[in-house]
């Protein structure tokens, strides 16, 4: 290793410093791009899980919930939603993905999520 270090001095660099150097590229990103990314992530988070504390569900969340309910009925049955969630909670991708993954598999669930989020 010593011989290798002599010829390749960059191997001896501090890993934290190296990671910092790599991240410099991200700092150069324009603020508008970051804002757009943040907006998209927030939109996705709202669709992924709807907690009762964040106020009334949006139209998109309601559509996702309706689609998921339909998938739940088709795949499992009409009673399964009552078994899985509390009465007040609206069904969301976060609450339904584990059971879909367990019984249909990861790949089928990915496909199902894609269809649920279609056109939204």
């Amino acid at each position, binding site marked *: 290793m010593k011989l290798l270090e002599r010829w390749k001095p960059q191997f001896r660099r501090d890993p934290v410093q190296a990671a910092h150097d790599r991240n410099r590229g991200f700092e150069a990103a324009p603020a508008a791009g970051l804002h757009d990314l943040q907006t998209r992530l927030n939109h996705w988070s709202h669709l992924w899980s709807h907690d009762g504390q964040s106020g009334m569900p949006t139209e998109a969340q309601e*559509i996702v919930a*309706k*689609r998921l309910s*339909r*998938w*739940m*009925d*088709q*795949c*499992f*049955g*009409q*009673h*399964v939603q009552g*078994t*899985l969630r509390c009465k007040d909670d609206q069904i969301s991708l976060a609450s339904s993905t*584990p*059971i879909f*993954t*367990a*019984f*249909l*598999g*990861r*790949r*089928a*669930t990915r*496909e*199902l999520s894609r*269809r*649920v989020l*279609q*056109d*939204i």
Partner: protein
Amino acid sequence: MHRLVRWIWILLALHLTLGMIAYGHFLVTGQYTLLGWYFGGLGTLFFVVMTAGEFCLAIICRSWFDSDEPMRLAWGMIACAALARLVGTLLRAISDGHLPWGDWHRLLQPSGGLFVSLSQLGLVVGGPVSMAFLAVGLGRVLGIQRRFHLISSLTRGDKTLLFLVVAFSISQLAINLPLLGNHPSLGTMLLWLSDPFLSLLLIEAILVRRSVIRMGQGLVAKCWGMFVLAILITSAGDASIWAANHSLLSERVTALTWYIWFFAAAAFASAPAYQLAAIALTRHDAMHLPETR
């Protein structure tokens, strides 16, 4: 009803129609000729088609789960159970000379006193071995269902049924254990495990049934419901054999009970077909979504 499941039950209906002609012939003439031909030829063919179909479908279902997903093992075990039933059917067909390739099967007779005949080996593979695989697979499924709180508490009827199943199993073991003194073959002893394994499957079936009731009428619920139905029919078939052996049934009723096994085979094959239908639904473009924007 899903296309594959519909085909399975249409095939069963056609097969039973032919079977009823053979049974009618038996009722009129009192001769077993046509009935023997039906069960030996068409019956064996039906079992081979159903178990082979079940095996292929279960393997496809298994392939939809990644190696770290618990359902992969469950479907793998169910596929092994189907394969064991297929091998058992073929071994019995070869031994009984129902397959059209002459008498060379006599060369395959097992030696060493482990199994009395190739037919007994077929019974062991298609019976206790297959049941053991299925029990492991359903056990895995029950674990997953429990994780999602899908299994509700047992009713009084369930508990009574469980008690009867365990009592029957213990009584059968109590009858068989003294026979160990006669030095039975390994095959005979393994066949004694049929009742305990069937009891275990019935217990699992009762628990799976509770989860199916909690789910509703969806495709996944129907898949596991079909396993419950198949196990119940198998138990009914087993009970009819016991009743016939104790001369509790007339000759006509005994012949009628032989048809039970076709229903069990169709129910076993329908289970993975329903699972596949649920998976296929996620890839189906025609599924109309409500309120698309």
